[in-house]
């Protein structure tokens, strides 16, 4: 299944620190081998499978005849709201923070569906965060250190943000955010990170490459030219 869509993008924060993932992996695996209760590991196996299913649902919920323009209209709507369904199943788009809250705020069915799936993705990724953090605490590995937890939570409060988490093996290296792909949401995230007081956080230019196929033959030799 291909996830080639302009609906979502990612942004990465360079967080000061840097961790050694090989030794972190060794500790986690040794905890898993010697512990009686490895429920966070088994929870994660299910949750990760869930993330795969939801990503497929999101792509399926896009109209078959979606164009760059129609996706852009959808992201414009979705980007204005917090993508949180709370304990419910339905994304409540009327909870727009700065709206007048009137009933004219209607969204089309496809946008509502996509919104629902984005809320499910948020909820599932939040659950993976909780389980990863707990697994780290049980094995004395800083998978999601408290500083990262606070930054991720603050980032997830922004409208248009689906989820924010420590990618891969976690640690102090980086923080990733998945967001509804508009320049406005990216600017808001950037602004939060640049002015974040508790921690030195530098936003990076890196983005999701939705149509990248991995290895590419490059007809042009890249040029480098820098003063030392």
């Amino acid at each position, binding site marked *: 299944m291909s996830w080639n869509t302009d609906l979502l993008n990612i942004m990465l924060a360079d967080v000061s620190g840097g961790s050694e993932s090989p030794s972190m992996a060794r500790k986690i695996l040794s905890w898993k081998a010697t512990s009686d209760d490895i429920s966070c590991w088994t929870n994660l*196996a299910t949750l990760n499978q869930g993330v795969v299913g939801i990503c497929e649902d999101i792509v399926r919920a896009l109209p078959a005849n979606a164009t760059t323009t129609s996706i852009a209209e959808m992201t414009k709507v979705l980007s204005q709201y917090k993508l949180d369904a709370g304990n419910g199943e339905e994304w409540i788009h009327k909870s727009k923070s700065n709206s007048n809250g009137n009933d004219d705020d209607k969204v089309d069915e496809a946008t509502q569906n996509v919104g629902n799936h984005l809320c499910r993705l948020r909820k599932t990724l939040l659950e993976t965060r909780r389980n990863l953090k707990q697994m780290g605490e049980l094995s004395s590995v800083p998978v999601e250190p408290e500083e990262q937890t606070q930054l991720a939570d603050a980032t997830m409060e922004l409208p248009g943000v689906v989820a924010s988490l420590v990618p891969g093996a976690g640690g102090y290296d980086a923080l*990733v955010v998945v967001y509804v792909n508009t320049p406005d949401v990216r600017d808001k995230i950037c602004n939060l990170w640049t002015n974040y007081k508790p921690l030195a956080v530098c936003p990076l230019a890196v983005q999701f490459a939705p149509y990248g196929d*991995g*290895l590419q*033959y490059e007809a042009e030799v890249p040029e480098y030219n*820098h003063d030392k």
Partner: protein
Amino acid sequence: MATTTKSTTVSAPGKILLAGGYLVLESPNVGVVLAVDKKFYSTVVQRPKTTTTTTKEDEEPDTKKPKVANDTTSMEIKVHSPQFDATWYYLANTTRGTSGSTTTKIMANELNPSSNSFVEKTLRVSMAYLYASTATPFGSDDNINLDITILADNDFYSVTPHLQARKWDATPEKLAQLPKFLPCITADNGSLQKTGLGSSAALVTSLVGALVLSATNATQMDDALRRRIHNLAQICHCHAQGKVGSGFDVSSASFGSHVYQRFPKCLLSDLLQDFDKTTSDNVMSDKTATLLQHLVEESPEN
């Protein structure tokens, strides 16, 4: 005889593992890995020997006199990393036995100021594969040297030192204004601050890709080539790391975003043990080379 230089560039993207940290180490757990727009670029230039200016070895074999048996020819490989301000020289000595078998030995030049395990081991395994699958991957007259250049997009390493040096704030506009392929600056404590995009996997995968395409004269990528380069890059990356890693970073560098499930460990451990046994003299046995060729050309995931 080769008279003109031929240049081949292949890129491989970095990755972000959105879900599956630690669990992807064990099959059948899945991980969601996203490819990003930041890449490593490797360029392989086949340069006729007459134009080379970088011969550092005292004795070059006389290529003018063809020998019938135990013919050893020598190719110089120069690897340049402008961002690390480093150049490494290697010699690839190829011996063609009377039985038709070919062995290639990669030797790092003693004068190299530093060594790079990922570059050196990728060269070693890739050349062994290329010579095992084709008797003359770089032309029949052995009149070629290789000049390789490796470049990395900025975000693989922290850009904070570059922003600070310019007294710039970390705004999207300023980030976009940073020059491409900035030098990799080490912190005061000598460490290089990585951002976790998988630099070593993107490096190895792009380098293997450029070597394979250069040797096969391909000027476009297709699924069969991607598969073969992926398999070879996984082997090179494991060999350079000294262990069988999870493999999702090489996989996304090869195929882009996907749901990852790891390959069986047992396939590679025999081969890696063989590699390590032959490290001392750098010559790979025919048996090892045949196993290598088999693993690259058969899909390890089947």
